[in-house]
């Protein structure tokens, strides 16, 4: 009897301990039981895919299990699953931040081969978006449904008052060069307004007219003339007091969208308004529409000195999936299905990368928030101008490191040469295999 009790308690204890572990380890991965073939497992870092999954389930009669892992933990959680194949998804999304690393890691199925042959429909996509899904051998590993080019969102009322017009095309002309941007900024200052919330806003134009990859084919770090000039532009913005000293994502950055904000500099405090925000497609839906409700209708979007893109989500089929056919069906629905994508675009306003659909819908798009402007057409135009092939797996970190060095220069803590030297040292330290001169 005593033996039985001991055994039972040991059993109970071990179950408790072991289930405790598996809980913390795989809390988000859902159940692994059941036959694998009739459930399609999808992993992503937002709830964006919920709607398409519903459509997919209705159409194909296949049950989809969506696992959402917050972006900060996403790579760390996903990687072990992909490496070992245990509890791995059939389809998973990748964000631009780690996309380049993943396409080369071989986690995604090669979509350039049979039976997928996506290269045949390459012309249907915005070039840079299609290109980003390719690995270093030129095989497509992931596709995207969206394109995320950027623009400059500005307040129409301030534009009319200071520049005499609120027409996006005319203002886009004024801001088609850095000199133009500074002219507008000076005019804004004269009337007591601030051109941008902070000097980081123009980092998207730091590539200039001749964008180059951070790291070239010879594995050398490339710091272009344009990127170095960006340091001076950023400093000029700060020194000439063209910004509201409200760093991106800070409370005052959001406040400046709909309210006058206070700026303290040179011993005085002034109340001012921010003229423009440099944000991409999603900035309209996820940032401005949420944070600038009071000024809805007073906004418009136009181009800056050079086209750029910011963010984006790609998806592909897991190379070890036992369910590749169904998995690719889902990718197809998300990236090539005209009926579904038309509904999706009209519902969410997401700017798509699939031209057969965008060609049909772009002409009669208009957004109330932007005073009825057809932002869809504008963004598609910008997307087509983006140079493909310059994104590397190093970009995310090198941009951060460079930004930190530029800030040192802007704040006068370092000279330009010191800041550049510091950046190179940091880059070398982060990526020892890159050649840094």
């Amino acid at each position, binding site marked *: 009897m005593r033996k039985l009790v*001991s055994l039972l308690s*040991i059993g109970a*204890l*071990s179950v408790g*301990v*072991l289930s405790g*572990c598996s809980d913390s380890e795989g809390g988000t991965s859902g159940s692994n039981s059941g036959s694998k073939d009739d459930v399609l497992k999808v992993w992503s870092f937002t709830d964006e895919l919920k709607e398409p999954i519903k459509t997919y389930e209705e159409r194909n009669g296949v049950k989809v299990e969506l696992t959402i892992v917050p972006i900060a933990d996403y*790579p*760390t959680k996903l*990687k072990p699953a992909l*490496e070992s194949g245990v509890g791995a998804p059939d389809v998973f999304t990748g964000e631009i931040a780690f996309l380049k*690393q993943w396409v080369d*890691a071989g986690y995604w199925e090669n979509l350039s081969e049979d039976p997928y042959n996506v290269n045949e429909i390459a012309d249907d996509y915005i070039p840079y978006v299609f290109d980003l899904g390719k690995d270093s051998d030129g095989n497509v590993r992931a596709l995207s449904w969206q394109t995320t080019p950027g623009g400059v969102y500005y307040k129409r009322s301030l534009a009319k008052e200071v520049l005499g017009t609120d027409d996006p095309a005319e203002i886009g002309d004024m801001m088609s060069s850095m000199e133009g941007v500074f002219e507008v900024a000076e005019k804004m200052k004269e009337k007591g307004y601030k051109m941008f919330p902070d000097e980081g806003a123009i980092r998207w134009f730091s590539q200039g007219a001749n964008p180059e990859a951070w790291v070239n084919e010879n594995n050398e770090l490339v710091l272009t003339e344009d990127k170095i000039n960006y340091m001076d532009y950023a400093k000029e913005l700060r020194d000439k007091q063209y910004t509201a*000293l*409200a760093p991106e994502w*800070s*409370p*005052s950055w959001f406040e400046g969208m709909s309210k006058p904000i*206070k*700026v*303290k*500099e*040179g*011993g005085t405090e002034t109340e001012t308004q921010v003229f423009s925000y440099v944000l991409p497609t999603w900035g309209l839906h996820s940032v401005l529409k949420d944070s600038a409700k009071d000024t809805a209708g007073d906004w418009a979007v136009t181009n800056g000195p050079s086209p750029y893109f910011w963010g984006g989500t790609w998806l592909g089929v897991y190379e070890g999936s036992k369910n590749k056919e169904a998995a690719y069906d889902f990718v197809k629905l998300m990236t090539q299905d005209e009926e579904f994508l038309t509904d999706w675009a009209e519902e969410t306003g997401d700017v798509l990368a699939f031209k057969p659909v965008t060609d049909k819908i772009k002409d009669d798009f208009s957004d109330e928030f932007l005073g009825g402007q057809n932002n869809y057409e504008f963004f598609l135009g910008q997307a087509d101008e983006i140079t493909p092939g310059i994104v590397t797996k190093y970009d995310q*970190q090198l941009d*951060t*490191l460079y*930004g*930190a060095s530029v*800030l*040192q220069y802007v*704040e006068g*803590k*370092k000279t330009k040469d010191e800041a550049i030297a*510091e950046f190179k040292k*940091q880059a070398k*330290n*982060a*990526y*020892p295999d890159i050649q840094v001169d």
Partner: protein
Amino acid sequence: MKKLDRYGYAFIAPFWVVFLTFSIYPVFLTLYYSFTNYTGSPGEEIVGFANYARLLTDTFFIEAFVNTIKIWGVNFALQIGLALLLALLFSDLRLKLKGLAFFRSFFYLPNLITISSVALLFGILLDWQHGSLNMMLLKLGIISDPINWLSQPVTAQLSVSLILTWMWFGHSFIIVMAGVSGISKDFFEAAHIDGANRWQMFTYVTLPLLKPILLYIMITSLIGGLQLFDLPLLLTDGIGAPDGSLNTMVLYLYNQAFKYNNYGYAAAVAYGLFLITLVFSAVVFKGMFRKERAAQKGA
């Protein structure tokens, strides 16, 4: 008899299974990785002591070490000083302060807030243009231009030290208070009769008797302090801005591993950190005890 022995092993088995899998195995796996150029995907090569050689000459790691010690040192001095002062006030026979239980929990409260909330809170308080601290100083006329606390190395490090002090002085206070209550009142009375003043009582009676407790606080705080990570990560850009002043050893390890994918080198950094912690703890321990033995011999 023998049979019963085996039950014992069965009972401790669950713990050992978990401990071996989640603690011991990773420790040795990390040691293995520290000799490779592992980048997160299989196919690593053994590179011998290359990672350790790099560690010894890595100015960023040395900078991180100095930063960590600086931030921890200032924090510890303030924290222990504050804890001792408060313990002294509350244990003073003549003052007879009331409400010890209330203050004990009140001072401990900051320790219960999750670190991310603390970082968010202080991020707003210390904000350059709109932070309450700058608003207050401007209103009082102490400064004429707002200070960008988190953008200058000295103020940024000091901010982290002070936040840590705020979070941990209550914890130290409770432990010191427990130590002080454990000292027999006879010592204080005897000292009082002998004509000792408060300062003499503190330095000749309280402090020597508190030594084991202070040693305990110091070692635990040092080990925690050397692992300083979350506040620097959350307060600025996560890579140690401004100018690398918030780059601590664990933050550096984290960035090498999870941002730059240099897992092999990060593993070497981890072992470097382990050795440093070991050496520091040993030095503190030895130093404290040698004095004690000397004192005993002298007496």
